[in-house]
């Protein structure tokens, strides 16, 4: 039985290899050389067996991996040694003392990080933190509310542009009044959150009746319109050239040199991340969070139970947008330069990818996903042009073998302890 399935596997893989050889024939084997106006077809037969062998090996490995994946799903996880180790590890971490100390160790490491490593690594980490905030914000919309939002980068852009425009229009009066411009950051941070929230409410108005594909495409349209408006109203926003020389936040009344400013922004981002985690956790367990979760599972049943769908959808978009706005200000302060190209559809997709790969709806998952997604391409730079390829392949592998994300969401469980009734 076992050997036969192996034989059929090999046969299948051979067929696949043959298919790929035919399919890639025009690309890999034929090459048209145009020399002096005469087209001549070069046949590079040497490539053909290479394609065949590569396709065979890949297809075979793929089969085995799929098999392994299926078997793993079938068996109880704790049977294998790996599963047992994992179970023991999670049990170990469930103990409050160890859990607390490990979180403390992680925090200590995060605080020491900018002093241990250089400015480059600090900046990379700031970007990762910004994406953690964005991911957690989008997680409210996608993970809790179940509303697919492809225009999330627009809110990010709203935040960044709030700070940029504040600098451009309010900044000069600050300078002439003798107040240092570093305060602008602290004014913009909540302001950007509020402005983004307003935009979130604005977007949620047309999408109240929509769902599924329609919702996704509308949010996408909103994001693209925002970007185009920013790009084309060049008198106000600077158009495609963007806004430059945005000030970094000052440490009270002191202007910081770039290295120290990076550390400073790092800590601001870090504190914001912690606040975000705290707030999102509270939201999850609140009345609104429960209502959102119910809305994700079944809108009609939810409505029948007396949950106000309109209000909840508004809240979802507003909350999600708020964090994106704050993250936008951070981003503008870190790079000191913004232009519309930073807020394309691609950016929304990357944030969505962070959420999906980490595990939709799970907070540690989203954090892990965002950090992974931003750090991997940064440290894969050594591989130059292949890094995006490897990145893409890694994403596909994660989705196929871990469809719920790296750290899947745990459903809430309530265990009742039977208490002796005190009579």
């Amino acid at each position: 039985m076992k050997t036969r399935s192996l034989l059929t596997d090999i046969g299948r893989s051979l067929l696949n290899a043959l298919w790929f050889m035919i399919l890639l024939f025009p690309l890999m084997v034929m090459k048209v050389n145009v020399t002096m106006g005469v087209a001549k077809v070069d046949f590079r037969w040497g490539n053909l067996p290479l394609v065949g062998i590569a396709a065979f090996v890949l297809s075979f490995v793929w089969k085995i991996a799929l098999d392994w994946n299926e078997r793993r799903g079938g068996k109880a996880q704790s049977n294998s040694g790996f599963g047992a180790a994992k179970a023991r590890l999670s049990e170990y971490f469930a103990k409050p003392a160890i859990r607390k100390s490990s979180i403390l160790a992680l925090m200590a490491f995060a605080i020491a990080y900018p002093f241990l490593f250089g400015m480059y690594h600090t900046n990379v980490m700031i970007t990762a933190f910004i994406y953690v905030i964005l991911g957690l914000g989008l997680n409210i919309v996608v993970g809790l509310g179940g509303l697919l939002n492809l225009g999330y980068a627009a809110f990010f852009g709203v935040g960044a542009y709030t700070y940029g425009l504040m600098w451009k229009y309010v900044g000069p009066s600050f300078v002439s009044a003798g107040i240092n411009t570093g305060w602008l950051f602290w004014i913009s941070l909540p302001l950007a959150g509020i402005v983004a929230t307003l935009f979130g409410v604005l977007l949620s108005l047309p999408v109240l009746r929509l769902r599924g594909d329609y919702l996704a495409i509308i949010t996408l349209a909103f994001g693209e319109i925002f970007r185009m408006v920013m790009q084309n109203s060049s008198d106000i926003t600077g158009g495609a050239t963007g806004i430059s020389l945005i000030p970094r936040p000052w440490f009270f009344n002191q202007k910081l040199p770039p290295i120290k400013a990076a550390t400073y922004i790092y800590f601001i981002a870090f504190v914001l991340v912690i606040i975000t985690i705290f707030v999102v956790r509270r939201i999850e367990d609140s009345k609104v969070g429960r209502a959102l979760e119910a809305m994700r599972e079944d809108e009609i049943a939810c409505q029948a139970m007396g949950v106000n769908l309109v209000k909840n959808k508004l809240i979802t978009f507003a909350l999600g947008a708020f964090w994106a706005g704050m993250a936008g200000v951070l981003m503008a302060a870190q790079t000191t330069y913004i232009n519309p190209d930073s807020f394309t559809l691609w950016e929304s997709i990357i944030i969505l990818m962070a959420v999906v790969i980490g595990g939709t709806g799970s907070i540690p998952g989203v954090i892990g996903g965002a950090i992974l997604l931003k750090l991997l391409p940064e440290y894969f730079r050594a591989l130059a042009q292949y890094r995006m390829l490897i990145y893409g392949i890694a994403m596909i592998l994660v989705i196929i073998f871990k469809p719920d994300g790296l750290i899947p969401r745990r459903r809430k469980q309530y265990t009742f302890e039977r208490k002796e009734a005190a009579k």
Partner: protein
Amino acid sequence: MVLLTILIKFTRIGKAMRATAQDMHMAQLVGVDVNQVISVTFIIGSALAAVGGVLICSYMGQINYYIGFIAGIKAFVAAVLGGIGSIPGAVLGSFVLGWTESLGTGYISSDYEDAFAFIILILILLIKPDGILGRSQRQKV
């Protein structure tokens, strides 16, 4: 379009396709090879996209590897505009999209070429959430 309508409406595979779209598990239960149906839909879809690609590159006279991205989004917009699942809707949606884009570019401003498509999309979905020719589906509980 006629061929596609005939294919979807009258052939065996078309019937199977519609069944799969409605309820994958149920289709499997009544004996539809769901995996095969999915493969066939992808084959047809890719083939049509390839035809579109050939047309667009003979029209534009140049290609690059980003060409598919915005085209894919616009195709999606057109399909949603007309109503997903309706072939005449998709054709109508594409026409509406193309006309708004070129007329908007000509008469209003060429800076906002892509924005017109999206604005018209939002307006139409506000009035008819299922697209121009899409039938509203009743929700079953």
